[in-house]
């Protein structure tokens, strides 16, 4: 049944539009039943989100692709347990949070001074602006990496990824109240750092830092 649906998925040089029209529920069902094409579409559709979210949650690291693959491995393995009453992206996001927190757990005893994840280059800016932005980015990256995983994921999911509090709570497996608190504490930490580092404050306000 689920397989039949996938005959509708165009092969080879399909256009993004037609894949995007494909309903989530069918895609998930077909993927769970092992349909390779459905899985491909599902990955193509969600990879930018997972890739970005993992990057924001753990920083850009050498084993970043491994982490992304781990997310999908876990996703496909437990796809059958996914209940249609949740949004698929929320469910997938919760796997991201899980994988990230496992990662942090494992890193805990091995934090080294240069273990600060690198944030990414800013798109569409001049090389000078990018270089200038790096100082601010480094501070932000360090700050994020120093937050507890709970604070960090709440901040990343709510403020950077733009999910509402309920969704963030669902993804993190915590209560709405705890999520509000975590976001607030993360916000206060960032504000405190900005008060200490004028570079950071300027970077945050202007998107660049002049030295």
């Amino acid at each position: 049944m689920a397989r039949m649906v996938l005959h509708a998925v165009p092969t080879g040089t399909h256009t993004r539009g037609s894949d995007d029209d494909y309903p989530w529920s069918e895609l998930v069902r077909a993927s769970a039943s092992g349909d390779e094409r459905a899985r491909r579409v599902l990955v193509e559709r969600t990879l930018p989100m997972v890739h970005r979210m993992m990057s924001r949650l753990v920083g850009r690291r050498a084993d970043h692709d491994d982490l992304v693959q781990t997310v999908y491995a876990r996703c496909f393995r437990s796809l059958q347990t996914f209940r249609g009453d949740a949004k698929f992206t929320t469910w997938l996001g919760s796997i991201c949070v899980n994988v990230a927190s496992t990662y942090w757990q494992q890193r805990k005893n091995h934090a080294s001074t240069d273990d600060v994840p690198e944030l990414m280059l800013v798109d569409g800016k001049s090389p000078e602006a990018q270089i200038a932005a790096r100082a601010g980015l480094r501070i932000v990256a360090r700050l994020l990496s120093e937050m507890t995983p709970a604070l960090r994921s709440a901040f990343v999911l709510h403020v950077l990824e733009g999910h509402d509090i309920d969704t963030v709570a669902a993804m993190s497996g915590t209560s709405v109240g705890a999520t509000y608190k975590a976001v607030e504490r993360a916000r206060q930490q960032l504000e405190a750092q900005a008060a200490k580092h004028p570079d950071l404050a300027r970077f945050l306000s202007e998107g660049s830092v002049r030295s």
Partner: protein
Amino acid sequence: MNAWTCADVEREVFGHLAGQLAETDALRAHVHLQGCAACAALSLQWDQWRTTLQASSVPVLSPDHAARLTAAIVADAARADVSVERAPVRTRRVRAAIGAAMAIAAAVLIVFVARAPSPPSAPVLVAQEPSASTAIPDVLLRPPPLVETPFAGPALANVSSARSAAPIAMPPHAPLVEAVDDPAPPRFVCPESLAAIAKHGKRAVHCLEGRGADAYLSVAESLLARGARADAEVYFVAIGERFAGNAAADALYASALIAIDTGREYVARERLERYLATAKDGAFRADAAWRLATLLTRARQLQRATPWLDEVIERSPSSSRRAEALFLLGSMYDRELDNLSGALVAYRRAMAEPSAAPEIKKAAETRIAELLQR
């Protein structure tokens, strides 16, 4: 409508900025911001900060990179399909590593030497030397067909076909000494990256102390990829010792495969027995049971081999494998245990297996005829 306080606005500032507030809340926020300079400043500041942070934390994902990653993920999922559903993530990676271990593992070629006229002796399972005569014995029990395992892939298919062309033998006199304990004491500063740790081989296993099973696996994988099986074995053994659950069991199985491959049958047997004792529903149970049964048979420990043959017969998803196990069981009843009715049943069931190899069917048929004449 209750008016919002500063605390309310602070709490909901991001929801407000993202336009996520319900209509009445949005109105309350708006009203408060109109009359409160502090909250208005906070809101404005975070509007800017949020935009900067969002814009500057979008990683580059080139179409090439995305395509490569997608292909890897989809292939990975296909490989994992055959395995048990609720295995933890580490298990997936152990499986991949075991796949690699199997790909390089020399398969044990077990030859059932039928002697006609048959004396009441045990079946003899011998390792076929690479240079051995090409004469095909009347019954050839293949080693566990690698292509039927969950990680069947091109690499394994190659190994499998290469094997049928030129069988790889297990050395007749296998060293029985466990070669993997006590890695050398640290003589270097532990590097941070896994790739660098892998370069030190088994000497660096202590560098992963406190890390997760995935770190051990990564190193084991890269060592396997490099053909450094003995070194990889140390990391698999370490996973088995330091971690619990399916990951540990599967790592134990991987270390058993490497032991088989390097001719340490005793070590392999011990590990397979431990795997079977702990992994009650392990993905490799049927395969492990088959390997253990054949190793025990080879070591003439027939009584100990029979429960594992039973397990293969019960559990193996492969009909041809079940036929082989039934045939081997029948031979034991027939020649060792003098249980003729048991032998007949086993031979008949072997013949009834839909995918029994023709030579198994033929041999079973011959044996049945012999038994009925007695």
